[in-house]
């Protein structure tokens, strides 16, 4: 064991319950072995050094979306990021931007979930259900694949420059979810449903600078959904009723 195995972790500390104490970095030294993820480092710090450190985690396998944060300036999931992958032995950890800090690396996700709910993130059908499955071709199912992959980790939400200046903007994940249902051959929501996103707080707010795509740990491309929704809106305006209009 040599000194160079010891990495310095600078972690942003702040507690909304004690607003008098300004956000500040606290430094911890941890021995890094190959394969050690940022999440494992955080767990070790909390277990062995500082029981008051707050961060979220659950699956530790990049599927539950709990542990998004800013790692050396880049937004990613702590559990899939190797500590030794930065070519530097100092690592800075900060909470996701565009949301209020509750404590340390835990942010208040309420606005994110509010936007999610706004798009009616569930399948809408008009008539009765068939006895068996609703038929769908594999080809049709594949159209929604990339949006289905979203784990709602809010990496995109934290990376979005529009949200930084307009907190009422709905954000990339909500549009990806909406497009997941718009493109689902089984969904029967009326096309005028898109009025909900036909505004600057909606799909027209996007700068299309693709930060959300860069930040997504699951290869979802929220910008594709925004472009798709915009096209559909234009089409509806030009040609009136769309496929699901009565």
């Amino acid at each position, binding site marked *: 064991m040599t000194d160079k195995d010891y990495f310095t972790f600078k972690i942003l500390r702040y507690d909304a319950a004690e607003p008098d104490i300004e956000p500040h970095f606290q430094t911890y030294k941890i021995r890094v072995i190959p394969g050690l993820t940022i999440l494992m480092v955080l767990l070790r710090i909390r277990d062995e050094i500082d029981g008051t450190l707050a961060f*979220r*985690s659950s699956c530790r*396998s990049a599927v539950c*979306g709990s542990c998004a944060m800013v790692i050396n300036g880049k937004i990613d999931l702590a559990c899939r990021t190797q500590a030794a992958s930065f070519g530097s032995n100092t690592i800075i950890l900060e909470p996701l931007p565009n949301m209020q800090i509750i404590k340390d690396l835990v942010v208040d996700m309420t606005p994110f979930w509010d936007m999610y709910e706004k798009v009616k993130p569930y399948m809408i059908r008009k008539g009765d*259900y068939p006895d068996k499955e609703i038929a769908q071709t594999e080809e049709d199912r594949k159209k929604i694949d990339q949006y289905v992959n979203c784990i709602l980790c809010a990496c995109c939400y934290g990376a979005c420059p529009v949200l930084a200046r307009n907190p009422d903007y709905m954000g990339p994940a909500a549009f990806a979810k909406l497009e997941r249902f718009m493109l689902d051959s089984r969904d029967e929501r009326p096309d005028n449903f898109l009025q909900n996103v036909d505004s600057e707080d909606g799909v027209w707010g996007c700068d299309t600078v693709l930060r959300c795509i860069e930040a997504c740990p699951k290869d979802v491309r929220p910008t594709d959904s925004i472009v798709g929704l915009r096209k559909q809106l234009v089409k509806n305006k030009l040609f009136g009723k769309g496929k699901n209009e009565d």
Partner: protein
Amino acid sequence: MLYHDVLIVGGGLSGLRAAVGLCEKYDVGLVSKVHPIRSHSIAAQGGINAALANNPDARDDTPEKHTFDTVKGGDYLGDQDAVEIMCKEAPVIVYEMEHWGCPFSRFPDNTIAQRPFGGAGYPRTCFSADITGHVLLNTLYERSVYKDVKVYSEHVVLALVTDGNLCHGAIVLDQIKGEIIPVAAKATVFATGGYGRVYLYSTNALSNTGSGIGIPFRAGVPVKDMEFVQFHPTSLIGTNILMTEACRGEGGYLLNNKGERFMERYAAKAMELAPRDIVSRSIQTEIEEGRGFEHELGKYVQLDLRHLGAQKIMERLPGIRRICLDFIGIDPIYEPIPIMPSQHYSMGGIDTNEKSETVVKGFYAAGECACVSVHGANRLGGNSLLDTIVFGKLASISVDQYLQSDGFKPDEKLLMSKKAEVEHKIKQLNSGGSQRPFKILDELRLTMSNLAGIFRTKDELQQALSKIIELKERYKKVNVSSSKIYMNYELIGAWELESMLDVGHIIVLGALLREESRGAHSRRDFPMRRDAEWLKHTVATIGKDGEPNISYKGVTITKYEPMERKY
């Protein structure tokens, strides 16, 4: 104090399904220590079983055949009436999930696709690539948003309030606000998932502590068959992240260091698709007899997918490939995956019947935290997602019946006195004791993995038992850095540790007493199944000093007389 007709604890598949079934008629509150979408169900990969007979190779599949496979897979410890109910319900709930939007993979005739899974006579596992848990949980959460279910996220249940006969609700900690809230409810449903983190090597999420089993146990609710712990054959070395059984269902091989498909020696017919208990023991044996590979992260055998080809891997197992790339830097298209068996699932749990009822009136349990028992001594792959949704639904039906017939009012005094007790206990966790929670937990996990693992002996189990009793003693002096209840993850960890010690204790004691080998419980000193003495369920209830007292009860056999299990 909060009031609800029904309190549901757990936002995984089981809890959400129960909530969706009740929320239109009753005032339902769903409490979950993580946001529902972060629940461990999200991680399920391979699929969910239902005899839909969609696969061209399975046109004559039926719920009866599914029942038989499940009973046999469980080494005849499952209650056959309950298994029958689950397998009959299976097509109903799979279609229901599809109707609610679940994007299942499809066959060329546009029906739900089905793949082969271990221990099943037919390819009956419905799936969505290798993210079946993800799509099911999203669908049910979406449904709960549609139905406007009241969810309390990041609220942890600390205690259950019962008077011995009746359940009155629970004591809940709101992590974000830092408040302890008594929740009065006419009916309470636990759907708190598994306890995998009691073991050092586990495929489970960090949140799977098993507090949802320890808490009712300490409130006097019996727990059942806890010695039956499933070890999944294929977890990635190092992190123990699961490599789904679908890898083998799609045709993957298991290889030892001689390049042999060693399953030929252990299950010549079923090969890699023998039930999990058998495959895990086979891998362990290969490793113990020197035919494994060495790595700084541990000994392993190989899971080889290369012959499936890039296209099939990208289409059917994209998540597995992503995990391999992210977590061990291996691309399974070009290299075999280094795997080892590790703890995966708990067949045992809160003692329930086929209606999700417990002996305490008004207290129900469903999903992995419950033991009906449908999985018996060993669960088949794809049957757990099924169990969670079916019994979540059946719990909602039972609760509905109970609430219709009962004018019961929860006892507020009882709730308040339990709250005071909880507050006192929290203070004690920060009163200068000498023991650190993580040390106790580390030792517990090591003990469980080393001494109560795939193969067991009397000697080792006895050592494990004394170790756990010692750890429980040390737990009395456990200390956390702060007694604040607001955003204090260390405190919650220390609180849950008590349950983890109880869960470990019950597993080890049940395993020590059960002098036979059945399903996942494999005793080197008693290698045979012994039906005459041991065809019975283990039931643990709390004794006056907090220790588990063990008794036994019969197994329900309807159509399938126990036979030797051959694959």
